[in-house]
Every structure is written in structure tokens, then in C-alpha cells.
């Protein structure tokens, strides 16, 4: 087939909602876009373990400790699953991880905010996993087969994470005034960073248009952000918590909530590495990789020795 025929065939599949599979021909830019997006997603899962992992030893009771361990374990699993999806596109896992460490690859900026209190763990589940689900449910129908299938599994677990976070905050909101204040403080700090998770406004989003044409993305950043706000406001009301935005109100005409403009200066500063925990998060990942080097070398050396013994 000529290049033009390949392209026609590929575009046909996209139009007919036939999934693109690893061995199919695909435009190089489609491949690179997917590698960038999936590895960014994988990095987010792995870096996201840090703020929560930080609370495992301090979880307030055994049940919460067990649930948090299970949740963080799921996230490591998602990371592994997604790195494997990038490998189906020809990416090298170690190289992908090195790109994270040099700052070439990004991860979700939300994890550059600190988890200061136990209520933050609830807020992360409710808002951060809630926002992630908005993105990921849409990705279950993404055009690249392995990514779409990974998302189906991941969404099921994320939805459990979101519910446990909400349930944990419910406990605080029905608890003592101190506990409720702790929950409100967590919402105050995580609300805006959660809205930032959907990325820049559509007009500013460099990759959006092509990704939508390729059906990698199904909804724009602003559409997803609006759905998130619409879904989350009633949940906050049930908790009895106040969303920190004085312009938040229902717009009858639009059938959506109106809300204030995001502080985009803060958004870009955090993306550029100037958030409260960017340095700490990357340093922790780099340290894990460096300190684990001798372990990986040992595992490789051992595997080689055994393979030689077998063939001898």
C-alpha cells in the first residue's frame, strides 16, 4: 500500500469507529500523541502514589489504612498497565520514565499540591479521582484499542476510589466541628487545582483539535470541566460544604453552573515546575530509581545466570 492508501484506510477506520490496534499502520503523529498522552497518564498514577502514600502510616484506623493501601496499590497497577500500553506503541518504559525525571514529560499537576491533613485524602478521592473519571470515562471509547481497554478496567477502580473518598469526607462532615472544618479546609485547597486538571481552556489547548479529529479525545477540556462542576456541586451540598467560589451559581439558560475563571497564572506556574511540591515529587521518583538501580541490576544478572544454567 502507498502512504496515501494507508492514510485513507486509517481514516476510514476512525470514521467507522473501528479500533486502531498495535500492528496497524498509523500516522506517526497519532503514535506520538498517544505515547505522550498515555505516558503522561502513567506518570500521573505513579507520582499520585506519593501524596497518598504519605498518609498510609498515619491513617486514623485500620479500615482506612487497608482501604488506602488498596487504593495506592491500584494506582501502581494502573501505572504498570499504562506503561505497557505505551510499549505497544514502540515506546521504551525506562526511557519514558527518564523523560519524566528530566522534566521532558509531564504528569498531572494536581499531585504537586501537598496532602496536609487526613481530610485531604478524602478530598483527593472525591475531587481528584472524580475529575480523573470524567476524563477517563470518555477515554474508554478512545480510538486506540489497548488504551481504550485499559481505561475500562481503570475506570471501574477509579469509581471505587471516588466513592471511598466521598464516603470518608461524609464521615468527617457528620463528625465533630473540628472534623468538618478539616473537610472544608481540604475542599478550599483542592477545588481549584481539581478544576485545573482538565487542562487549559479550549482556545489555549495546543493538542485538542487534532486529538478530537482522531477520536483520541471525545470531549474538549472545557466540556469535561463543566460536566465535573455540574456533577460535583450537588455532592458538596449533600456534604454541607461550601465550594470556594462566590460566582458559582446555576445558570438556568445554559443548564449548567457558572463559575469563576481559573487562576491561569498559577496553573502555568505549576505546570512549569513551580508548584508547592514539584521538586519533592520528582526528587522522590528519581531517588527511587537511583536507589533501586542495584536491585534491577541484580535481578537482570540473576536472570542471565539462570538462563545460562538452563541452556548449559
Amino acid at each position, binding site marked *: 500500500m502507498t502512504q496515501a492508501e494507508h492514510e485513507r484506510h486509517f481514516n476510514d477506520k476512525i470514521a467507522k469507529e473501528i479500533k486502531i490496534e498495535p500492528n496497524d499502520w498509523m500516522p506517526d503523529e497519532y503514535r506520538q500523541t498517544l505515547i505522550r498522552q498515555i505516558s503522561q497518564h502513567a506518570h500521573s498514577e505513579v507520582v499520585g502514589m506519593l501524596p497518598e*502514600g504519605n498518609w498510609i502510616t*498515619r491513617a486514623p*484506623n*485500620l479500615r482506612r489504612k487497608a482501604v488506602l493501601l488498596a487504593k495506592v496499590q491500584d494506582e501502581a497497577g494502573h501505572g504498570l498497565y499504562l506503561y505497557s500500553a505505551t510499549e505497544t506503541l514502540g515506546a521504551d518504559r525506562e526511557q519514558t520514565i527518564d523523560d519524566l525525571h528530566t522534566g521532558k514529560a509531564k504528569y498531572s499537576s494536581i499531585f504537586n499540591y501537598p496532602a496536609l491533613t487526613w481530610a485531604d485524602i478524602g478530598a483527593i478521592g472525591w475531587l481528584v479521582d472524580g475529575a480523573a473519571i470524567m476524563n477517563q470515562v470518555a477515554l474508554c471509547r478512545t480510538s486506540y484499542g489497548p488504551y481504550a481497554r485499559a481505561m475500562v478496567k481503570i475506570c471501574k477502580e477509579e469509581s471505587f476510589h471516588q466513592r471511598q473518598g466521598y464516603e470518608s469526607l461524609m464521615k468527617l462532615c457528620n463528625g465533630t466541628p473540628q472534623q468538618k472544618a478539616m473537610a472544608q479546609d481540604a475542599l478550599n485547597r483542592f477545588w481549584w487545582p481539581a478544576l485545573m486538571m482538565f487542562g487549559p481552556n479550549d482556545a489555549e489547548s495546543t493538542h485538542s483539535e487534532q486529538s478530537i479529529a482522531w477520536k483520541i479525545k471525545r470531549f474538549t477540556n472545557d466540556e469535561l470541566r463543566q460536566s465535573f462542576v455540574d456533577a460535583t456541586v450537588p455532592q458538596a451540598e449533600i456534604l454541607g460544604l461550601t465550594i470556594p467560589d462566590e460566582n458559582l451559581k446555576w445558570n438556568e439558560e445554559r443548564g449548567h453552573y457558572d463559575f469563576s475563571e481559573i487562576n491561569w497564572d498559577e496553573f502555568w506556574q505549576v505546570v512549569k515546575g513551580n508548584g508547592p511540591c514539584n521538586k519533592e515529587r520528582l526528587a522522590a521518583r528519581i531517588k527511587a530509581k537511583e*536507589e533501586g538501580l542495584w536491585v534491577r541490576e541484580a535481578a537482570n*544478572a540473576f536472570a542471565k545466570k539462570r538462563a545460562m544454567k538452563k541452556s548449559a
Partner: protein
Amino acid sequence: MQQDSLFEYVMRLSDDSLILGQRLGEWCGHGPILEEDIAITNIALDLIGQSISLYDFAAELEAKGRNHDQLAYLRYENEYKNVLLVEQPNGDFAMTMLRQFFFDAFRLPLYEALMQSRVAQLAAIAAKSVKETRYHLKHSSEWVIRLGDGTEESHMRAQAAIDHLWRYTNELFYENAHDQRLQESGAVPLMSDIKEKWQKTVHEVLQEATLQLPSNNWKFDGGREGRHSEHMGYILSDLQYMQRAYPNMEW
């Protein structure tokens, strides 16, 4: 009378699980490879799960209205009866794996024997925990072999971990009057039987790993009697932080 002894015995098991689970939880997000982050978190989760069942049973035996969280979170340091081995710091990955291996090689035959306990509830908890413990031992043994027979550096680190941790292993087989009472009634096995199985596993695995047992046989103990190492206070500071800072609240 036997109720007291059984309470003491079950608390040892649950404290061992809790404190080791707590230590493993510290690794989360910092493992040498993602697969190990998953494995270590999973083992921690199993251990915390075991401690919940065991504390529930202990609370029933005690019958003073305490629940599993009060037992796990609201005791003083000298009331914890875990062995010193499980409270030792994670150190490097070799230290963590050797600590885990020495513990798993003890826990598996202990649970296997406790499945025959005349105390039905203890037998049931052992039967439930034995399967996951078999995986834990498989995982830690494989790593001990891999590290011992891997590179020069991994061999050296694994040997250093053995040399350091060896002094804490004898305490695993601690017995006092409580044990004798429980052994007589068929509630728990003789520690000498467990030790024999432990030694067999340790010898086999270390031999395959090309690692040596230290010639120094100096032993430490005290954990089973509530005398801990300096590390224990810090573990409890983290563990108990929320319960102490926000008393009498539900989470």
C-alpha cells in the same frame, strides 16, 4: 485463665502483623521497580487485614468492650508484644526483603500448625491467612535468592542484612508460661517444631542464594515482653497520631 493466655498469644500475632504492615507501608511509592511497589503494598495490605481479624478475636477474648482500633491504636509502647524483628527500619531493599523472609519463614509454619488449633476461631484465621503467607514467603525467598546470587553489590547488601538481622531471629520462637498452658490444651503448637521448619527453610534458601549464616550467635529479645527498640516510639507516633490528636472521633 486460659482466656488470658489466649489473649496474650493472639495479641502477639496481631502486633507482629500490624507493625510489619506499618513498616512496609513506608515503602509505598519508593520501591525499586513498580512491580515491587505493587507487591510490597499488597503484602502490607494482607498483614493489616490479618491484624484486623486477630484484634477482633482478641477483643472478644478480652471482653472489656475494646474494638480492634482501640487495641491497635490506643496502647502504650510497652503493651505492644511484637518481636523486635518487625519494628526494625526498612533500610535498603535487601534489609526489607531479609526481614520479610525471616518473618515469612516463621509465619507460614506457624499458621499451618495453628490451622489444627482446638480453638476454632484461631484455626479459622490461620486457614484464611495461610494462603497469602505462602505467597509472601515465595516472594521474599525469590528475592533473597536473586539478591544473593545476583551481582557482587547485591550479594554484599543481602549478606549485610543477614548479619544485622540475625540477632533478632531467635525471639520469633519466644515462649513463656502462657504458651505452655496453651500448648497443653492443644490450642497452639510447640515453638520447637516451628523453629525446626524455619531453620530448614532458611538453610535451603540461603544456600541457593550463596549466602552465609553469621557465626556470631548473640541474640536480642524483649519485644514479646514489651521492651522494644528505640524505633518503636517513632512507629507509634505515626500510627497513633490521628487517634491521639483527635481523641474519641470516628473516621
